[in-house]
C-alpha cells in the first residue's frame, strides 16, 4: 500500500536547559529529510511533552538535554507513555550525554542516544528504519 503519510517528529526540550541549537538544527534537518517536525520550545515538563506528542499524533519524540538532567527526564517521558499504554512512539534522545549513561537510558526505554557530532542524515536513517508510522506501516526507504 502506498502510504503518503510523512513521519511526524516532535522535537522536545525537557527540563530548564535553554541550549536549543541542536534541537532546532535537527528539527530543521529532519524537515529537509522529508519528515514533519514540530518543535516544542524550551522548558517542557515530561507531562507536557507526552501531551503534545498525543495531540500532534507523532511517530517519534526526540528529546534534547544538555544540562545533565537527562537521567531523570528521558526515562520519565517513556514512563508516561507507558502509563498511557502508548507503545508505538519511538523515543530518541540527544545532547551531551556521557557515554556511561547510555546503557541506563536504553534500559529505561529510550531507543537510541545521539551524541554531539552525529549527522542529521544518520538520525533520519535511524528514524526511517525504526519508527512505526502510527496506524500504518512505514514505507521502507530501500
Amino acid at each position: 500500500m502506498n502510504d503518503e503519510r510523512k513521519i511526524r517528529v516532535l522535537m522536545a526540550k525537557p527540563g530548564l536547559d535553554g541550549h536549543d541549537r541542536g534541537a532546532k538544527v535537527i528539527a530543521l534537518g529532519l524537515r529537509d529529510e522529508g519528515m514533519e517536525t514540530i518543535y516544542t520550545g524550551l522548558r517542557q515538563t515530561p507531562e507536557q511533552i507526552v501531551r503534545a506528542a498525543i495531540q500532534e499524533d507523532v511517530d517519534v519524540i526526540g528529546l534534547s538535554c544538555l544540562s545533565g538532567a537527562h537521567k531523570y527526564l528521558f526515562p520519565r517521558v517513556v514512563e508516561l507513555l507507558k502509563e498511557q499504554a502508548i507503545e508505538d512512539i519511538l523515543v530518541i534522545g540527544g545532547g551531551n550525554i556521557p557515554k556511561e549513561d547510555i546503557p541506563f537510558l536504553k534500559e529505561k526505554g529510550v531507543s537510541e542516544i545521539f551524541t554531539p557530532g552525529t549527522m542529521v542524515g544518520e538520525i533520519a536513517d535511524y528514524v526511517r528504519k525504526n519508527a512505526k508510522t502510527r496506524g500504518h506501516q512505514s514505507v521502507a526507504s530501500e
Partner: protein
Amino acid sequence: MSSDIEKVKKRKQEWEEKVLKPALEGFGLKESPTKSYTPADTEGFDFLSKVGFPGEYPFTAGIYAAQPGMPAPRVGRATAQRRGRPAGPRLVRAAGYSGYGTAEDTRDYYKEMQKRGDRGGPNLAFDLPTQCGYDSDNPMIRGDVGKVGVTVDTLRDFEIIYEPFQGETELDRIASNFTINAPANILIAMYFALAEKRGIPLDKLRATPQNDILKEFIARGTYIFPPRPSMRMFRDSMVFFNKYCPRINITSAGGYHIRGAGATREQDLAFSMAILIAYLQEGVNAGLDVDSFAPRFTINQFGGSMEMFKEIAFHRASRRMYARIVKEKFGAKSQRSMLLRGGRMGAQIGCENTTVQRPLNNLTRSVIGAVASALSGGEGTAYPPYDEPLVMGRGLESSQLARDATRIVHYEAKLGEVRDPLAGSYYIESLTDEIEEAARKELDKIEAMGGAVAAIENGYMQREVAKSAHARQKRIESGEDLMVGVNCFVGEDELELEINHLVPHVYDPVRRDQAEEKQIKNLTELKKSRDNRAVAQLLKKLKTKAKKEEENLIPHFIECAKAYVSEQEMCDVLREVFGEYEPVSL
C-alpha cells in the same frame, strides 16, 4: 600614492597571468586555493583614524596602552610548586566559574580551594532553577536542582555559600561574579542583604553580575519575563548600582553565546552591538549621563570560531565599532566609556568547535585560540580545556594544560610582546573593514525595526540564528565545512583516542545527585521557621510596587531577601505583573 596603487594593481594582474596561472595549470587547478593581498586592498588606509595607538580611540589596537601582564612567573622548583599569592597587587579578581549542588556543597568546595591557596571571590554558577526563577521544591523542575551550578532559594543559601569568605576574604576584600540574568536583581539583592547583615557598606562591594538578559532570548534561554519588563529590571540595576555601588559592574554582556547558538560572525557582532545600544539607551532614558555608567559595562567573551585571522579581525572591528557607537551615537566624552572591557577578552575558538571525538584535539584547537587571542589584543588565553564537551566536569589536568598553553604562548612564544602585531597587514585591515561594514549593515536593519528589543519581540534574531545554525550543519554534512575526527579523517586508519581523568574532580558526584532531595528538605524547614505573615505582607507590597513602572524594585528585593522570601516567591509576583515570555515558533 594612488599612482603607486595603480602600479601594484597592474603588477598583480601581470603576476596572475604570468606566474600564478601557469603554476595552477601545473597543479591541474582552475582556481587558486590561496589568496594574496596587496596595498590595493587597503587603498586610502588611514592609520590614525582606523587603528590608532593602543589605549586610544578607536581602540582597534587594544583597549589598554599596555596589556596588563600575566602573573609573574614563579621561577624555580620549590616556589613553582607553592600555589601562594602571586607577587604584586592583592588579587581581587573572582576565581574560576564554579558551584554545584546545595549551598553546603559549594561552601565546602570553596573551603577546599582556599586550602589550596585560592584567595579570589566566588565566580558563581547557579543551577537552572535559580537562573529561571524557580525554587527547588517546585515539582515542575525536578531533575535540574544543583546540576549546572549551585541552587539558591533564599538568603540562607547565600549565607552558607559565603561562610568561607570572611576575615582576609571578607566581602569588601573580594570580587564576586554571578552568572545570573533574568532574576539578577533578586540574587544581587540577596548579596546586598548578606553584606548589610555583616555590616559592610554597599559601596565597598565588588561584583559583576552577568545581567545580560537580551541575549538570553537569542541564546542560552534563561529568560523569565518578556523583553520590555526585562529591560526595566536592567534599568533598575543600572540606576541602583550607579547611585550606591560604584564598584559593581552593571553587566557582563557577551556575544559568544549568540555565536555558540549558531550566529555568523556578522550576526554575532551586529546583534551584540544592538543589545549594547539598547542597554546604553535605557540608561540615557533613565536620565543618567552616559559617562557615569558606560565605564561599568563589561564584556564577557566575544566571538568564537576556528578561523583565526577572521576572529582577530572580528575583535579589532568590534572594539572599533563599539567605541564609535558610544562616541558618535551617545556623545560620550570619557574614553573609559568607549571600551569593550572584559576579563580575558580576545579571540577564542568557541566551545561549539570542540569535539567529543578524539578530545585531546581540543587542546590543539584551544592553542590556536590562544594564538588568536594574543594577536587580537587579548591575554593569549587557551580556552576551553580539552575536556569541555565531555560533560565530566573540567578536570584538573585539562585545566592545568590550558593554563600551561597560555603560559607557553606568553613566555616561550612571546606573543604578548607587541600590541596589535597584525596592524597594517593588507589582509587583516581589509578584513577588519569588511567585517565591520557587514555588521553595520545588519545593525542598521535591526535599528530600523526599532532596535534589539523589537528584533527579539518579532523573533527576527532568534530565527536568523536558527537559520545560520541549520546552514552550518548542512555545510558539515556535505563536507563543505570540515571538522577533524567528526566528518573527515574518520575510519579504520585513524586511532579513536579517548581520555580518562587521572586526578579526581573536586566536585563530589554523590553530593550532586543528592542535592535535590536535601535542598527540598532545607527549604521546607526554612519556610516553616520564618515569619510567614511578614513574607505575605512583603510580597503584597512588592506587587503594588511592581505595577508602577517608574519604581526601582531593588530596595524592596533587599527587604524581601532579609525576611527569607524565596526567589520564586518574588518571581511569581513579577510573573503576575509582567507576564512570562512566550518564545516565537521556528
